[in-house]
Protein backbone atom coordinates (compact mmCIF):
# COMPACT_ATOMS: atom_id res chain seq x y z
CA UNK A 1 0.00 0.00 0.00
CA UNK A 2 2.78 2.39 0.99
CA UNK A 3 4.79 1.43 -2.11
CA UNK A 4 1.72 2.12 -4.28
CA UNK A 5 1.39 5.63 -2.74
CA UNK A 6 5.04 6.37 -3.48
CA UNK A 7 4.61 5.16 -7.04
CA UNK A 8 1.59 7.48 -7.52
CA UNK A 9 3.47 10.45 -6.08
CA UNK A 10 6.47 9.87 -8.35
CA UNK A 11 4.19 9.51 -11.38
CA UNK A 12 2.44 12.81 -10.58
CA UNK A 13 5.77 14.59 -10.09
CA UNK A 14 7.15 13.33 -13.40
CA UNK A 15 3.98 14.34 -15.26
CA UNK A 16 3.98 17.81 -13.73
CA UNK A 17 7.59 18.57 -14.60
CA UNK A 18 7.45 17.05 -18.08
CA UNK A 19 4.24 18.89 -19.12
CA UNK A 20 5.66 22.28 -20.13
CA UNK A 21 8.64 20.69 -21.82
CA UNK A 22 6.30 18.79 -24.11
CA UNK A 23 4.03 21.80 -24.69
CA UNK A 24 6.81 24.14 -25.83
CA UNK A 25 7.70 22.35 -29.08
CA UNK A 26 3.99 22.06 -29.96
CA UNK A 27 3.58 25.83 -29.51
CA UNK A 28 6.66 26.43 -31.63
CA UNK A 29 5.24 24.29 -34.42
CA UNK A 30 1.92 26.13 -34.32
CA UNK A 31 3.62 29.51 -34.49
CA UNK A 32 5.72 28.46 -37.44
CA UNK A 33 2.65 27.12 -39.19
CA UNK A 34 0.91 30.48 -38.72
CA UNK A 35 3.79 32.22 -40.41
CA UNK A 36 4.72 34.28 -37.38
CA UNK A 37 8.29 34.58 -36.25
CA UNK A 38 8.74 31.81 -33.75
CA UNK A 39 10.88 33.72 -31.32
CA UNK A 40 12.17 37.09 -32.15
CA UNK A 41 13.70 38.16 -28.89
CA UNK A 42 17.46 38.16 -29.12
CA UNK A 43 18.34 38.68 -25.49
CA UNK A 44 17.00 36.35 -22.83
CA UNK A 45 15.91 37.27 -19.38
CA UNK A 46 18.12 36.46 -16.49
CA UNK A 47 18.13 32.74 -15.88
CA UNK A 48 16.77 31.95 -19.34
CA UNK A 49 18.73 31.25 -22.47
CA UNK A 50 18.68 33.92 -25.17
CA UNK A 51 16.09 33.05 -27.80
CA UNK A 52 17.11 33.26 -31.40
CA UNK A 53 14.87 33.95 -34.36
CA UNK A 54 13.88 31.12 -36.62
CA UNK A 55 16.26 31.09 -39.59
CA UNK A 56 14.86 32.82 -42.67
CA UNK A 57 11.71 33.92 -40.86
CA UNK A 58 12.94 37.07 -39.20
CA UNK A 59 10.35 39.80 -39.10
CA UNK A 60 11.81 43.07 -40.37
CA UNK A 61 12.26 45.54 -37.60
CA UNK A 62 9.77 48.41 -37.64
CA UNK A 63 11.29 51.47 -39.26
CA UNK A 64 12.89 54.00 -36.97
CA UNK A 65 10.98 57.21 -37.22
CA UNK A 66 13.11 59.35 -34.96
CA UNK A 67 13.96 61.73 -37.78
CA UNK A 68 12.72 65.21 -38.48
CA UNK A 69 13.13 66.30 -42.07
CA UNK A 70 11.10 69.49 -41.80
CA UNK A 71 12.25 71.19 -38.65
CA UNK A 72 9.99 73.07 -36.32
CA UNK A 73 6.68 74.10 -37.85
CA UNK A 74 5.71 77.72 -38.23
CA UNK A 75 3.49 78.86 -35.38
CA UNK A 76 -0.06 77.95 -36.28
CA UNK A 77 -2.72 80.66 -36.21
CA UNK A 78 -4.55 80.76 -32.92
CA UNK A 79 -8.03 79.33 -32.97
CA UNK A 80 -10.52 80.03 -30.20
CA UNK A 81 -11.62 76.48 -29.42
CA UNK A 82 -14.20 77.62 -26.87
CA UNK A 83 -15.87 79.73 -29.53
CA UNK A 84 -15.74 76.81 -31.97
CA UNK A 85 -17.41 74.55 -29.41
CA UNK A 86 -20.08 77.13 -28.63
CA UNK A 87 -20.70 77.60 -32.32
CA UNK A 88 -21.09 73.87 -32.82
CA UNK A 89 -23.52 73.56 -29.91
CA UNK A 90 -25.62 76.47 -31.16
CA UNK A 91 -25.65 75.19 -34.72
CA UNK A 92 -26.59 71.69 -33.56
CA UNK A 93 -29.62 73.21 -31.83
CA UNK A 94 -30.20 75.31 -34.94
CA UNK A 95 -30.23 72.14 -37.02
CA UNK A 96 -32.70 70.37 -34.76
CA UNK A 97 -34.93 73.43 -34.54
CA UNK A 98 -34.71 73.80 -38.32
CA UNK A 99 -36.11 70.31 -38.85
CA UNK A 100 -38.91 71.03 -36.37
CA UNK A 101 -39.52 74.30 -38.21
CA UNK A 102 -39.89 72.50 -41.53
CA UNK A 103 -42.44 70.14 -39.99
CA UNK A 104 -44.34 73.03 -38.37
CA UNK A 105 -44.26 75.06 -41.58
CA UNK A 106 -45.64 72.08 -43.50
CA UNK A 107 -48.41 71.59 -40.94
CA UNK A 108 -49.28 75.30 -41.00
CA UNK A 109 -49.51 75.27 -44.79
CA UNK A 110 -51.66 72.13 -44.89
CA UNK A 111 -54.03 73.44 -42.21
CA UNK A 112 -53.97 76.86 -43.92
CA UNK A 113 -55.04 75.23 -47.17
CA UNK A 114 -57.85 73.40 -45.34
CA UNK A 115 -58.91 76.66 -43.71
CA UNK A 116 -58.91 78.45 -47.05
CA UNK A 117 -60.98 75.69 -48.67
CA UNK A 118 -63.39 75.76 -45.73
CA UNK A 119 -63.84 79.53 -45.96
CA UNK A 120 -63.66 80.34 -49.66
CA UNK A 121 -64.13 77.22 -51.78
CA UNK A 122 -67.92 77.43 -51.66
CA UNK A 123 -70.48 75.94 -49.34
CA UNK A 124 -71.05 76.89 -45.71
CA UNK A 125 -67.99 78.00 -43.75
CA UNK A 126 -67.49 76.08 -40.51
CA UNK A 127 -64.34 77.87 -39.26
CA UNK A 128 -63.14 74.64 -37.68
CA UNK A 129 -59.54 75.07 -38.88
CA UNK A 130 -59.14 78.69 -37.81
CA UNK A 131 -57.83 78.14 -34.31
CA UNK A 132 -55.45 75.32 -35.24
CA UNK A 133 -54.10 77.38 -38.16
CA UNK A 134 -53.57 80.36 -35.87
CA UNK A 135 -51.76 78.31 -33.22
CA UNK A 136 -49.58 76.61 -35.82
CA UNK A 137 -48.79 79.91 -37.56
CA UNK A 138 -47.68 81.67 -34.37
CA UNK A 139 -45.69 78.60 -33.30
CA UNK A 140 -43.93 78.56 -36.67
CA UNK A 141 -43.16 82.27 -36.43
CA UNK A 142 -41.82 81.90 -32.88
CA UNK A 143 -39.67 78.90 -33.71
CA UNK A 144 -38.36 80.65 -36.82
CA UNK A 145 -37.27 83.62 -34.69
CA UNK A 146 -35.51 81.34 -32.18
CA UNK A 147 -33.88 79.25 -34.89
CA UNK A 148 -32.69 82.29 -36.82
CA UNK A 149 -31.28 83.85 -33.64
CA UNK A 150 -29.29 80.69 -32.88
CA UNK A 151 -27.64 80.89 -36.30
CA UNK A 152 -27.08 84.64 -36.29
CA UNK A 153 -25.67 84.76 -32.77
CA UNK A 154 -23.34 81.76 -33.15
CA UNK A 155 -19.72 82.92 -32.98
CA UNK A 156 -17.58 82.49 -36.08
CA UNK A 157 -13.95 82.31 -34.97
CA UNK A 158 -12.57 81.23 -38.36
CA UNK A 159 -14.07 83.67 -40.81
CA UNK A 160 -13.56 82.81 -44.44
CA UNK A 161 -15.22 83.63 -47.66
CA UNK A 162 -15.75 80.55 -49.82
CA UNK A 163 -17.78 82.39 -52.45
CA UNK A 164 -21.15 80.92 -53.33
CA UNK A 165 -21.51 77.67 -51.43
CA UNK A 166 -24.33 75.63 -49.87
CA UNK A 167 -24.41 77.88 -46.84
CA UNK A 168 -24.88 80.91 -49.08
CA UNK A 169 -27.84 79.15 -50.72
CA UNK A 170 -29.17 78.26 -47.25
CA UNK A 171 -28.88 81.89 -46.14
CA UNK A 172 -30.62 83.22 -49.28
CA UNK A 173 -33.44 80.68 -48.88
CA UNK A 174 -33.89 81.45 -45.19
CA UNK A 175 -33.85 85.19 -45.82
CA UNK A 176 -36.60 84.63 -48.42
CA UNK A 177 -38.47 82.53 -45.85
CA UNK A 178 -38.07 85.32 -43.27
CA UNK A 179 -39.59 87.85 -45.68
CA UNK A 180 -42.38 85.35 -46.44
CA UNK A 181 -43.14 84.79 -42.75
CA UNK A 182 -43.24 88.49 -42.04
CA UNK A 183 -45.59 88.97 -44.99
CA UNK A 184 -47.70 86.04 -43.78
CA UNK A 185 -48.06 87.54 -40.34
CA UNK A 186 -49.25 90.86 -41.78
CA UNK A 187 -51.44 89.27 -44.48
CA UNK A 188 -53.03 86.91 -41.97
CA UNK A 189 -54.06 89.74 -39.66
CA UNK A 190 -55.23 91.95 -42.54
CA UNK A 191 -57.22 89.08 -44.09
CA UNK A 192 -58.94 88.38 -40.78
CA UNK A 193 -59.84 92.05 -40.37
CA UNK A 194 -61.43 92.14 -43.84
CA UNK A 195 -64.20 89.82 -42.68
CA UNK A 196 -67.35 90.68 -44.67
CA UNK A 197 -65.49 92.67 -47.32
CA UNK A 198 -65.33 91.56 -50.94
CA UNK A 199 -61.52 91.60 -51.14
CA UNK A 200 -61.06 89.16 -48.22
CA UNK A 201 -61.05 86.21 -50.61
CA UNK A 202 -58.35 87.85 -52.75
CA UNK A 203 -56.21 88.59 -49.70
CA UNK A 204 -56.68 85.02 -48.51
CA UNK A 205 -55.54 83.71 -51.89
CA UNK A 206 -52.41 85.86 -51.73
CA UNK A 207 -51.84 84.69 -48.14
CA UNK A 208 -52.12 81.09 -49.32
CA UNK A 209 -49.72 81.61 -52.23
CA UNK A 210 -47.14 83.33 -50.00
CA UNK A 211 -47.55 80.43 -47.57
CA UNK A 212 -46.60 77.91 -50.25
CA UNK A 213 -43.67 80.08 -51.36
CA UNK A 214 -42.45 80.32 -47.76
CA UNK A 215 -42.72 76.56 -47.35
CA UNK A 216 -40.69 76.10 -50.55
CA UNK A 217 -38.03 78.52 -49.29
CA UNK A 218 -37.73 76.64 -45.98
CA UNK A 219 -37.50 73.37 -47.92
CA UNK A 220 -34.71 74.73 -50.11
CA UNK A 221 -32.91 76.12 -47.05
CA UNK A 222 -32.97 72.76 -45.24
CA UNK A 223 -32.21 70.80 -48.41
CA UNK A 224 -29.20 72.98 -49.21
CA UNK A 225 -27.42 71.72 -46.12
CA UNK A 226 -28.76 68.19 -46.22
CA UNK A 227 -28.04 66.97 -49.75
Amino acid at each position, binding site marked *: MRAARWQLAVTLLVTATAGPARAAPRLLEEELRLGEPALSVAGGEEGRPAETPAPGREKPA*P*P*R*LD*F*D*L*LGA*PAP*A*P*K*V*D*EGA*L*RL*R*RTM*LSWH*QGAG*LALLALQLATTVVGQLNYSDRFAGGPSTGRYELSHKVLAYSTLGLFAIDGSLALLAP*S*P*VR*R*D*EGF*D*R*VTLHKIAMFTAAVGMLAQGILGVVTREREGYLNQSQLATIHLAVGYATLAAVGVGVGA*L*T*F
Partner: protein
Amino acid sequence: MPSLLASLLLALSLAPGSSYSVDPSASALRFRVVHKFHTVHGQAGQLEGRALAREDGTVAVMVRVPLATLRTGVANRDQHMYEVLEVGKYPYVVFKGVGRLGPGGDLPAGPLTLDGQLDLHGVEWPVSVPVTVERRPDGALRARGEFVISLDSFRIERPSLLFVKIEDGCRIDLDLVLREERR
Protein backbone atom coordinates in the same frame (compact mmCIF):
# COMPACT_ATOMS: atom_id res chain seq x y z
CA MET B 1 17.68 58.16 -78.15
CA PRO B 2 20.62 56.94 -76.02
CA SER B 3 20.34 60.04 -73.85
CA LEU B 4 16.62 59.42 -73.36
CA LEU B 5 17.32 55.79 -72.43
CA ALA B 6 20.04 56.89 -70.06
CA SER B 7 17.77 59.42 -68.39
CA LEU B 8 15.04 56.81 -68.03
CA LEU B 9 17.47 54.41 -66.42
CA LEU B 10 18.73 57.12 -64.11
CA ALA B 11 15.18 58.06 -63.35
CA LEU B 12 14.52 54.77 -61.62
CA SER B 13 16.95 55.26 -58.79
CA LEU B 14 17.52 57.66 -55.93
CA ALA B 15 21.15 58.38 -55.16
CA PRO B 16 21.99 57.89 -51.48
CA GLY B 17 22.11 61.24 -49.75
CA SER B 18 19.87 62.92 -52.28
CA SER B 19 16.94 64.81 -50.88
CA TYR B 20 13.73 66.06 -52.39
CA SER B 21 11.27 68.62 -51.18
CA VAL B 22 7.57 68.82 -51.96
CA ASP B 23 6.57 71.55 -54.35
CA PRO B 24 3.37 72.77 -52.65
CA SER B 25 2.09 74.63 -55.69
CA ALA B 26 2.19 71.46 -57.82
CA SER B 27 1.12 69.01 -55.13
CA ALA B 28 -2.22 68.13 -53.63
CA LEU B 29 -3.52 66.27 -50.63
CA ARG B 30 -7.19 65.42 -50.85
CA PHE B 31 -9.50 63.63 -48.49
CA ARG B 32 -12.95 62.17 -48.69
CA VAL B 33 -15.50 61.28 -46.06
CA VAL B 34 -18.86 59.66 -46.64
CA HIS B 35 -22.20 60.53 -45.11
CA LYS B 36 -25.36 58.61 -45.93
CA PHE B 37 -26.69 61.58 -47.90
CA HIS B 38 -23.58 62.70 -49.69
CA THR B 39 -19.83 62.38 -50.02
CA VAL B 40 -17.67 65.27 -48.87
CA HIS B 41 -14.44 66.04 -50.70
CA GLY B 42 -11.79 68.30 -49.31
CA GLN B 43 -8.21 69.24 -49.73
CA ALA B 44 -5.32 70.80 -47.89
CA GLY B 45 -4.43 74.38 -48.65
CA GLN B 46 -0.79 74.05 -47.65
CA LEU B 47 1.53 71.15 -47.31
CA GLU B 48 5.20 70.68 -46.80
CA GLY B 49 7.27 67.56 -47.16
CA ARG B 50 10.69 66.12 -47.77
CA ALA B 51 12.13 62.81 -48.81
CA LEU B 52 15.68 61.71 -48.09
CA ALA B 53 17.40 58.73 -49.72
CA ARG B 54 19.63 57.21 -47.08
CA GLU B 55 22.84 55.24 -47.21
CA ASP B 56 21.14 52.15 -45.81
CA GLY B 57 19.02 51.78 -48.94
CA THR B 58 15.88 53.33 -47.51
CA VAL B 59 14.08 56.54 -48.20
CA ALA B 60 12.70 58.56 -45.30
CA VAL B 61 9.65 60.69 -45.97
CA MET B 62 7.96 63.34 -43.87
CA VAL B 63 4.85 65.30 -44.81
CA ARG B 64 3.17 67.92 -42.65
CA VAL B 65 -0.12 69.72 -43.19
CA PRO B 66 -1.61 72.53 -41.09
CA LEU B 67 -5.14 71.35 -40.31
CA ALA B 68 -6.54 74.88 -40.41
CA THR B 69 -5.87 74.88 -44.16
CA LEU B 70 -8.23 71.97 -44.87
CA ARG B 71 -11.15 73.03 -47.04
CA THR B 72 -14.32 71.26 -48.11
CA GLY B 73 -15.89 74.13 -50.03
CA VAL B 74 -18.35 74.98 -47.27
CA ALA B 75 -16.98 77.39 -44.67
CA ASN B 76 -19.55 76.37 -42.06
CA ARG B 77 -18.69 72.69 -42.41
CA ASP B 78 -15.00 73.52 -42.23
CA GLN B 79 -15.49 75.18 -38.87
CA HIS B 80 -17.17 72.01 -37.59
CA MET B 81 -14.22 70.06 -38.93
CA TYR B 82 -11.72 72.29 -37.11
CA GLU B 83 -13.69 71.87 -33.93
CA VAL B 84 -13.69 68.07 -34.02
CA LEU B 85 -10.01 68.05 -35.03
CA GLU B 86 -9.22 70.45 -32.17
CA VAL B 87 -6.92 72.44 -34.39
CA GLY B 88 -6.07 74.84 -31.57
CA LYS B 89 -4.55 71.97 -29.60
CA TYR B 90 -3.30 69.81 -32.47
CA PRO B 91 -2.59 72.16 -35.37
CA TYR B 92 -0.81 69.70 -37.68
CA VAL B 93 -1.16 66.27 -39.18
CA VAL B 94 2.24 64.71 -39.72
CA PHE B 95 3.17 61.59 -41.65
CA LYS B 96 6.57 59.96 -41.25
CA GLY B 97 7.45 56.88 -43.20
CA VAL B 98 10.31 54.79 -44.49
CA GLY B 99 10.41 52.90 -47.77
CA ARG B 100 12.92 50.30 -48.81
CA LEU B 101 14.67 50.95 -52.10
CA GLY B 102 16.22 48.31 -54.27
CA PRO B 103 19.95 47.76 -54.77
CA GLY B 104 21.69 50.99 -55.73
CA GLY B 105 18.72 53.03 -54.60
CA ASP B 106 16.47 51.71 -57.34
CA LEU B 107 12.81 52.54 -57.06
CA PRO B 108 10.62 49.47 -57.32
CA ALA B 109 8.72 48.90 -60.53
CA GLY B 110 5.49 48.71 -58.55
CA PRO B 111 4.37 50.81 -55.63
CA LEU B 112 6.90 51.79 -53.00
CA THR B 113 5.43 51.03 -49.61
CA LEU B 114 6.09 53.63 -46.95
CA ASP B 115 5.76 52.11 -43.51
CA GLY B 116 5.39 54.67 -40.83
CA GLN B 117 2.94 56.51 -38.69
CA LEU B 118 0.43 59.28 -38.89
CA ASP B 119 0.28 61.79 -36.08
CA LEU B 120 -3.20 63.28 -36.01
CA HIS B 121 -5.31 64.70 -33.21
CA GLY B 122 -2.63 63.80 -30.69
CA VAL B 123 -2.69 60.12 -31.67
CA GLU B 124 0.12 58.33 -33.44
CA TRP B 125 -1.13 55.42 -35.51
CA PRO B 126 0.89 53.09 -37.76
CA VAL B 127 0.07 53.30 -41.44
CA SER B 128 1.40 51.75 -44.61
CA VAL B 129 1.13 53.92 -47.67
CA PRO B 130 1.83 52.43 -51.09
CA VAL B 131 2.98 55.18 -53.44
CA THR B 132 3.65 55.02 -57.13
CA VAL B 133 6.69 57.08 -57.98
CA GLU B 134 7.55 58.28 -61.43
CA ARG B 135 10.03 60.74 -62.81
CA ARG B 136 8.53 63.67 -64.69
CA PRO B 137 10.18 65.05 -67.82
CA ASP B 138 11.42 68.05 -65.83
CA GLY B 139 13.32 65.72 -63.49
CA ALA B 140 10.95 66.09 -60.56
CA LEU B 141 9.46 63.03 -58.89
CA ARG B 142 5.74 62.53 -58.76
CA ALA B 143 4.46 60.33 -55.96
CA ARG B 144 0.85 59.26 -55.86
CA GLY B 145 -0.88 57.10 -53.35
CA GLU B 146 -3.96 56.64 -51.27
CA PHE B 147 -4.82 55.17 -47.93
CA VAL B 148 -7.74 55.05 -45.55
CA ILE B 149 -7.65 56.05 -41.92
CA SER B 150 -10.18 55.33 -39.21
CA LEU B 151 -11.43 58.51 -37.55
CA ASP B 152 -12.32 56.51 -34.45
CA SER B 153 -8.73 55.27 -34.18
CA PHE B 154 -7.57 58.86 -33.96
CA ARG B 155 -10.27 59.61 -31.38
CA ILE B 156 -11.90 62.11 -33.70
CA GLU B 157 -15.55 62.66 -32.93
CA ARG B 158 -17.32 62.02 -36.20
CA PRO B 159 -19.49 64.99 -37.25
CA SER B 160 -23.14 64.28 -37.91
CA LEU B 161 -25.81 65.69 -40.13
CA LEU B 162 -29.46 65.13 -39.32
CA PHE B 163 -28.26 63.06 -36.36
CA VAL B 164 -26.46 60.60 -38.67
CA LYS B 165 -22.69 60.44 -38.25
CA ILE B 166 -20.28 60.30 -41.16
CA GLU B 167 -18.63 56.95 -41.80
CA ASP B 168 -15.49 56.04 -39.89
CA GLY B 169 -13.20 55.71 -42.92
CA CYS B 170 -11.54 58.78 -44.32
CA ARG B 171 -9.73 58.25 -47.61
CA ILE B 172 -6.63 60.31 -48.21
CA ASP B 173 -5.18 60.81 -51.67
CA LEU B 174 -1.67 62.09 -52.15
CA ASP B 175 -0.33 63.58 -55.33
CA LEU B 176 3.04 65.04 -54.52
CA VAL B 177 5.62 66.60 -56.80
CA LEU B 178 9.07 66.46 -55.28
CA ARG B 179 12.01 68.44 -56.57
CA GLU B 180 15.59 67.50 -55.86
CA GLU B 181 17.36 69.83 -53.49
CA ARG B 182 20.77 71.17 -54.34
CA ARG B 183 23.45 69.93 -52.03
